[in-house]
């Protein structure tokens, strides 16, 4: 009998998968963390550091738009720690008794920045250029925190640059993306002429140019973190949050472009 190579390959993969599932680490504990998409790089690094300090502990992350994470938690996802990109989702979870009142702490702030493809095809040089008719803008959708802050910042610019600015910018939107990483990708690919994201995302993404937004026109997002009431690893969850707020944790956050909430 002659087997097609694809079938043999599939069979090998299957055996490998069985083997992986069949040999769990002894006495392992898993900490499940739901975190806003913008935290992807920083939390992955912090998770690795946390694991090396706590042998036998595995950190599992689910990175997505904060709203999607909130809905998943409300629908019963088993989560130990939740880190949101705005207070709105955390407040909703406090009201729903998923998070204890007063349990949430702000662990960083993050400002907005305009990103452009490296070769800047629309030749944008200033914030005012965002209103240039015909350019293609990709923003985060209004439903996710960064999209909400983007529109708040546009309100500030509208007052500063003259009325009609915000409407002209909004008319240039070609897509409202579901999370901030999608905005970065579409700008990196050059499909969009510009997007507005967190400063941390502009640092995490390669092949990007940027236009800064001055403090008087900017909105700083405050990120809260909290353990979940139903967590089965309450102690470990508290340790993880403590680690985030420690000098080491905050240094990693600073490295990825976030403004630490604590000064050491």
């Amino acid at each position, binding site marked *: 009998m002659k087997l097609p190579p694809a079938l043999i390959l599939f069979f090998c993969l299957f055996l490998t998968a069985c083997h992986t599932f069949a040999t769990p680490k002894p006495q392992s504990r898993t900490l499940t963390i739901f975190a806003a998409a913008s935290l992807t790089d920083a939390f992955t690094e912090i998770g690795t550091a946390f694991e090396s300090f706590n042998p036998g502990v595995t950190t599992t992350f689910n990175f997505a738009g904060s709203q*999607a994470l909130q809905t998943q938690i409300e629908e019963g996802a088993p989560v130990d720690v939740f880190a949101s990109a705005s207070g709105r989702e955390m407040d909703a979870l406090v009201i729903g008794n998923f998070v204890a009142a007063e349990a949430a702490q702000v662990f960083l702030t993050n400002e907005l920045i305009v990103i452009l493809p490296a070769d800047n095809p629309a030749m944008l040089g200033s914030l005012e250029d965002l209103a240039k008719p015909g350019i293609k803008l990709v923003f985060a*959708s209004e*439903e996710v925190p960064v999209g909400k802050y983007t529109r708040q910042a546009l309100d500030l610019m509208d007052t500063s640059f003259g009325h009609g600015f915000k409407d002209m910018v909004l008319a240039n*939107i070609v897509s409202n993306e*579901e999370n901030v990483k999608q905005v970065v990708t579409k700008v990196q690919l050059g*499909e969009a002429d510009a997007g507005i994201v967190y400063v941390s995302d502009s640092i995490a993404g390669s092949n990007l140019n940027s236009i800064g937004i001055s403090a008087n026109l900017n909105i700083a997002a405050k990120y809260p973190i909290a353990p979940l009431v139903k967590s089965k690893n309450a102690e470990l969850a508290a340790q993880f949050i403590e680690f985030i707020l420690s000098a080491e944790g905050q240094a990693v956050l600073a490295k990825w472009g976030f403004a630490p909430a604590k000064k050491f």
Partner: protein
Amino acid sequence: MTKFRELSRHVLGEGYSKWILLLPSLILLAFFAVPLIALIYRSIGPDFFANTLSRQAFQALKLSLVTSSITTILAVIFGTPMAYLLARGKFKRKAWLELILDLPIVLPPSVAGLALLAAFGRRGLFGAYLNEIGISIPFTTAAVIMAQMFVAAPLHVRSARIGFAHIDKQLEEAAYVEGANQWQLFHEVMIPIAIRALASGAILTWTRALGEFGATILFAGNLEGVTQTMPVAIYIGFERNLGVALALSVLLIFVSVVLLMITKQLDKEEE
């Protein structure tokens, strides 16, 4: 109901042995039915009609119906001749062609979206040239249709190919003896005979196009009234307005059920 009992007795036999077949089937049935029932149950509420009739829901429904209809028409126009060639033509590398056409059916739609971006994006293999003459496809309604076309048109080709392949060879010869040319044969003999397979293929394409999500959100993005189809609105609704997402889901289930019932009817008449 009694008819069903008789039938099941006939197929399954008496006694406990029938449960060997029945039990796994019932578990699988419940696995499919329970989530659908739960979804409909969750969506029922005082806001159901307000959500269904909201502007966002209406725009998404309209866009979905328009784009999926255009996709179906294009799939029929371009797919039917190709299916005919595949069923009747004799040429080298036919197996390869069939493989290329079947691939989009099994590929994850996200792969389709990336592939379309790689080809027709502003920096894409082909899109870069289009961009120079001022045509940009991503984020347009045309991009929605292309995404649907990519994943759904192969279903029509496959169904039509099987339909054409089933036609008796003697019929073809008889038509030639009568002096019919290729086009007449295709147009006056083959299409009328294979019409049910063509229609059922077109409807399958239509339902698949209606449900297209992965390729659309990657290649066409999300903008109300331009690229926000029903599945995309449901996904975005998951972020903010679960009520609208639920109402749209129920609406999509309803439309799909109607279309599938038509296909079933066509298949039955075929037999």
